[in-house]
């Protein structure tokens, strides 16, 4: 029995898996002094990261008309912050190789995350938010806490699944009842332990309860709505069997027009498969 998400995460190998290259990249970007050449040089120290980056910039996510074949050009075209966010997402997906298939397949898990990320990116764009790529990353990672829970406390997650089947309820509320905390709390704590941006931590921690976010309520609301859409469209699953409760305050905060829904879904449909390939093809 674990008394807190922090205790659950103690000793988890994945905690140390965000590479040194990523930390240096992060420092370089936040220092605001790094040149394109310096950023390029940091990325090129990691062959896997370089390959993933080139797959990202040449994927349907960007849809550039000409192939981009060098890291320096990718950095110039995409921008350092966006590039950092996107490479971070692909690196984290790579960390989690497998989970017991009885819960959910990895393919279905990331399909749900990517669908949520694509939806969040569109909604953020409609809401005129800056740097929409961070919403894509937050969407991809919003359920990452569940991967830790499937890995560390599979028996308790079995119990949670049985409970939901016999007494229908949103999975995250059953996690709170049986384990004492839910996947959102675990995910938020993991992001914090990785020393990733505070906005990402709050979005992940409060994606089911955006009204509880202190500093990034709008951001958490965007991902909350994108999560609801991805569930409604049945685009993959991280283990939730039904559409999670919808927070009307999140909707009111963004003031979106429901008329945008067909276009949001259409964009998810058109980009989903291509973007999933960018995560899974020729892993290095």
């Amino acid at each position, binding site marked *: 029995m674990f008394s807190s998400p922090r205790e659950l995460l103690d000793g988890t190998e994945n905690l140390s898996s965000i590479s040194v290259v990523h930390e240096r990249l992060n420092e370089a970007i936040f220092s605001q002094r790094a040149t394109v050449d310096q950023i390029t040089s940091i990325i090129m120290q990691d062959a896997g990261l370089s390959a993933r980056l080139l797959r990202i910039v040449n994927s*349907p996510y960007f*849809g550039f008309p000409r192939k981009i074949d060098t890291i320096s050009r990718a950095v110039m075209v995409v921008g350092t912050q966006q590039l950092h966010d996107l490479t971070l997402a692909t690196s984290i997906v790579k960390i989690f190789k497998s989970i017991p298939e009885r819960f959910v397949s990895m393919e279905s898990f990331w399909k749900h995350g990517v669908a949520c990320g694509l939806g969040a*990116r*569109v909604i953020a*764009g*409609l809401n005129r938010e800056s740097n*929409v790529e961070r919403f894509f990353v937050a969407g991809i990672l919003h359920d990452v806490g569940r991967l830790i829970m499937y890995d560390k406390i599979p028996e308790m997650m079995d119990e949670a699944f049985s409970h939901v089947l016999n007494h*229908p*309820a*949103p999975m995250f509320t059953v996690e709170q009842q049986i384990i004492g905390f839910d996947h959102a709390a675990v995910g938020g704590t993991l992001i914090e332990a990785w020393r990733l941006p505070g906005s990402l931590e709050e979005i992940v921690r409060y994606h089911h309860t955006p009204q509880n976010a202190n500093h990034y309520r709008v951001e958490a609301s965007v991902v909350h*709505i994108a999560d*609801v*859409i991805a*569930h*409604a*469209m*049945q685009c993959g699953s991280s283990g939730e069997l*039904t*559409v*999670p*409760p*919808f927070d*009307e305050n999140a*909707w009111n905060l963004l003031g*979106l027009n*429901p*008329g*945008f*829904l*067909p*276009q*949001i*879904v*259409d*964009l998810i449909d*058109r*980009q989903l498969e291509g973007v999933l390939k960018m995560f899974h093809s020729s892993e290095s």
Partner: protein
Amino acid sequence: MGRIGVDQLNEGMIVDDPVCDFHGTVLMQKGTVITPKGIKILKMWGVLEVSVDDVSAVEHRASPERLVDPSFEEEAKREVDSLFQHVQHSNVFVKELMRFATNRIIKSRLERG
């Protein structure tokens, strides 16, 4: 003039306001004539809406639920009701999402035969 979804654009319509992508880069200037290639580019860049000169030229497409057996539609609605069992249905967005999810299930089953 008026704003319409990219899916409702027809060849020959004229762009009435510059069209930008998420980053603010102008993809089409005011006065551009819409072509099939132009529509493809807008979709590729994730543009959702465009302001055009003649909204009356928009074709209204039949929604799938009008084309199928009512019992088939009922089955899809039951599935969606179950999917949304933990969501309050009163919000306008939720209603639209449920309608959309129902149509999606119907469309998917029609495609599968």
